[in-house]
């Protein structure tokens, strides 16, 4: 049968050769769509610019990728990318993206969104997409606040952050995205910040090369509602940008967890990476196995066999 689900996994982004392009890579002009509606100075601009860079550098043509998001300032992302994309509903982008990933192995799915989208309304989906190890890349643009709805407390807001819903300062203990991801079973977990473009690109490249659920927490400052949140991580603002120590073993879950525990600004880089079989590969194997037994039969004949047993 001519089923897209049977395209060879080698058609995925990880294996697209960077050498000898048969086609000209997309230029920024071709890949940029609507002018972003973000506030001037918003950290999200950097993430978008580096996504364009990734597309250009890794020669990801429009028919090879799909960009998906939920709802939030950061989730406006797909509208600014001139490629197939979907702006889904608040918190459920990962589930939507999983449907694409599992039914279309020929596409690499990139998901972008905010901290509220990921860890509050979408918390359940984050956990399960990670544990299922569904092949896709998820970049959470963490600004520690709800931007789109204008400054409410987010699940990553630090204690004491004064928002419109905690005028006296946030009371709830924040989520640690890195720990959350590692504990949930994500197979690629990295941390970066909008203020270090080269590092963002490196992390995006490594994530898109990963065969599995790749998660990046990218600090992305909301200049409107949480100005200066990440100064301590930005050398230009007197902060410190600490790379993950060179001797860190990315396959060591305990060590990764320890890195994640470091107080802000913490470390930047790949915390954890593990090459477990993906949900995509496992489901494909179940199917290949089932189809092997029915080799040569057309779909209607397979169904006929079932109906014959129901007579």
């Amino acid at each position, binding site marked *: 049968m001519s089923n897209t689900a049977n395209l060879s996994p080698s058609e995925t982004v990880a294996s697209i050769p960077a050498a000898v392009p048969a086609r000209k890579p997309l230029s920024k002009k071709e890949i940029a769509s609507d002018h972003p509606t973000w506030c001037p100075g918003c950290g999200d601009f950097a993430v978008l610019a580096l996504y364009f860079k990734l597309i250009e550098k890794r020669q990801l043509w429009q028919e090879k990728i799909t960009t998906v998001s939920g709802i939030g300032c950061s989730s406006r992302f797909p509208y600014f990318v001139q490629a197939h994309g979907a702006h889904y509903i608040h918190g459920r982008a990962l589930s939507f*993206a999983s*449907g694409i*990933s*599992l039914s279309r192995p020929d596409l690499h799915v990139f998901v972008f969104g905010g901290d509220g989208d990921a860890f509050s309304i979408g918390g359940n*989906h984050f956990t399960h997409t990670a544990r299922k190890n569904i092949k896709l890349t998820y970049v959470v643009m963490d600004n520690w606040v709800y931007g789109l709805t204008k400054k409410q407390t987010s699940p990553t807001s630090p204690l004491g952050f004064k928002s419109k819903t905690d005028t006296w300062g946030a009371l709830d203990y924040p989520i640690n995205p890195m720990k959350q991801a590692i504990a949930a079973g994500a197979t690629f977990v990295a941390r970066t910040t909008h203020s270090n473009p080269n590092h963002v690109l490196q992390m995006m490249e490594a994530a898109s090369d990963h065969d599995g659920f790749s998660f990046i927490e990218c600090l992305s400052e909301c200049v409107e509602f949480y100005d200066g949140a990440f100064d301590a991580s930005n050398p230009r603002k007197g902060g410190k940008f600490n790379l993950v120590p060179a001797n860190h073993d990315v396959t060591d879950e305990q060590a990764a967890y320890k890195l994640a525990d470091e107080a802000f600004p913490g470390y930047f880089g790949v915390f954890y990476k593990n090459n477990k079989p993906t949900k995509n590969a496992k489901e494909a194997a179940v*199917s290949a*196995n089932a189809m092997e037994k029915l080799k040569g039969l057309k779909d209607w004949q397979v169904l006929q066999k079932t109906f014959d047993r129901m007579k």
Partner: protein
Amino acid sequence: MSDTAITTPPAGGAPRSSEISEAVIRIAGNSQDGIQAIGGFLARLAGRSEQEVMTFMTIPSTISGGPSIFQVRIGSGEVLSAGDEADVLLAFYQHSYDGHLASLKKHGIVLYDSDHVEPNAELQKDYNHVGIAISSLTVEAIGGTGKDKGKNIFSLGLLAKMFDLNVPKLEKLIGERFGGKDVSVLNNALTAFHAGYNHSLGHVIETFKFVEAERKTSSQVVMNGNEALAYGMIAAGVRFGAAYPITPWSDVMEIMRRELPKYGGTFIQCEDEIASVSMALGASYAGRVAVTGSSGPGISLKAEALGWGVMAEVPLVVINVQRGGPSTGLPTMVEQSDLNQAIYGSHGDSPRVVLAPADVEECFYLSIEAVNIARRYNVPVMILSDQAIATRIEAFDEPNLEKLCQDITPDLTPVEDYKPYDLNTPDGTVKRVVPGTQVKSGQYPIAGGLEHDEFGHPTGSPKLHALMNAKRRKKLQALAATLPAPKVYGPPEGSVLLVGWGSTRGPLQEAVDRARAAGDSVSSLHIKYINPLPPGLESIFSGFNHVLVVEMNDEGLYGYGQLGGLLRARFCDPKIRGLNKTDGLTFKVREILERAKANVTDAMHKL
């Protein structure tokens, strides 16, 4: 069963044999006794004998089992419902006997397990009592280790004897069911069956023989409604689905999870219903219509995502196997109370398609139609089944699978340009260009939940919002224009028109037959396309004095029920009234007729 056959008092001595055209058999016990299996064997046998069959069962709401019944109606003629009253009751326990004797017709036969049931002396004259030590005889036949195991098959043997059923065919069915496992399992089953078959039915009753059924041209398949939905989806070309378990929806997903890999597809069990509908929408967006489904509470969780499907114009099929609500409600009982939710359950104006199958066969065909409507109109389509169709087994003509099975693999051929939300197409629809397709103009579509312009980019323009709302509505109006007008069952003019939807069709049509036989002027109309409604209803209604909308839902604040309320709003016709109930059970024919009579002031004849 013909009245003469069953009311004949038992002739002392050897059982007599009478010819009958149909029989209703109710088996009452606990679910762990395998009574569903007896029913399944009988239904399957009927299917293989070109007989019509309809079953009805209750599922216990506790995990450990508990009281459960299975009713099967087998007939040589047309069988429309599972039957109001049973001709034969097989009672395994005292609670089965006490609780179900009232469902037996006067002078019907109650076969009871004398090891467990103490019959009521006062009732001996009203019903033919046949006590058989089913439990101990089964133990005697196959050994006592299996506790209550095997007594269902022993009883099947008793019934086979009583109804002169085709033994070789039953043996074959038993072989298919128990074969493959340990041979001793099959041998035990056959031993139990023959022990039952050869056991003397006593001196009290007669045996029966079904009159020869008319030969059907094609062979029949036997399945329940949930199976028909699952296989219908596969025939339609659906290769991806996602869902979360809930009764009575779960077995649709279990079947698809097991079967889809054979076709290169997959069905994903998600963490919840929101993830499920989202995953299915993602797969649909990616090119091939996908399916999700649930019951009651789970459908509520999908509402926001359905609105996205409407807005982004992404096709999807959602199956709702309705149960009693609201909230956790009556998880194992039937109700038709999700119609309003199916049509309106989302924020904003979000027109989507709602279809309701009336029987098991229609579950299969309507699945294919739902997929094709979703593809053609780029809209979510909800199939409203219910617990009664989900669990009942019917035999229907084997579908021509070679003809019906479709390949809906997306076309990824590059296109020159693409305007996903073009406002100037005749019926508002545009063929979708899906991810993986190169668009030569370089203008790529974004599917989004924000109101958008023709390219999918967000807009706050009031004018565009109005135009896009109209576009989404017009698609359904265009679909409505293509729908066939439903056919009236019975004369097209008369006093009373009974209007129904979903699983009530059988009892409604039987009610019409019975009423007409009694000289009353009653017809019925069944609506399969709930939203949009098909054309032609107004002229059908004009032929009747009363239009009674029969539904298994509450009459509501204004007294019309859910479809009734919709028809009232649509046609502003005061003769449309509701005939509603919410006892969690399917309609009995008698119940419909009594309620209709009480409702209609000027008698049932045509004025």
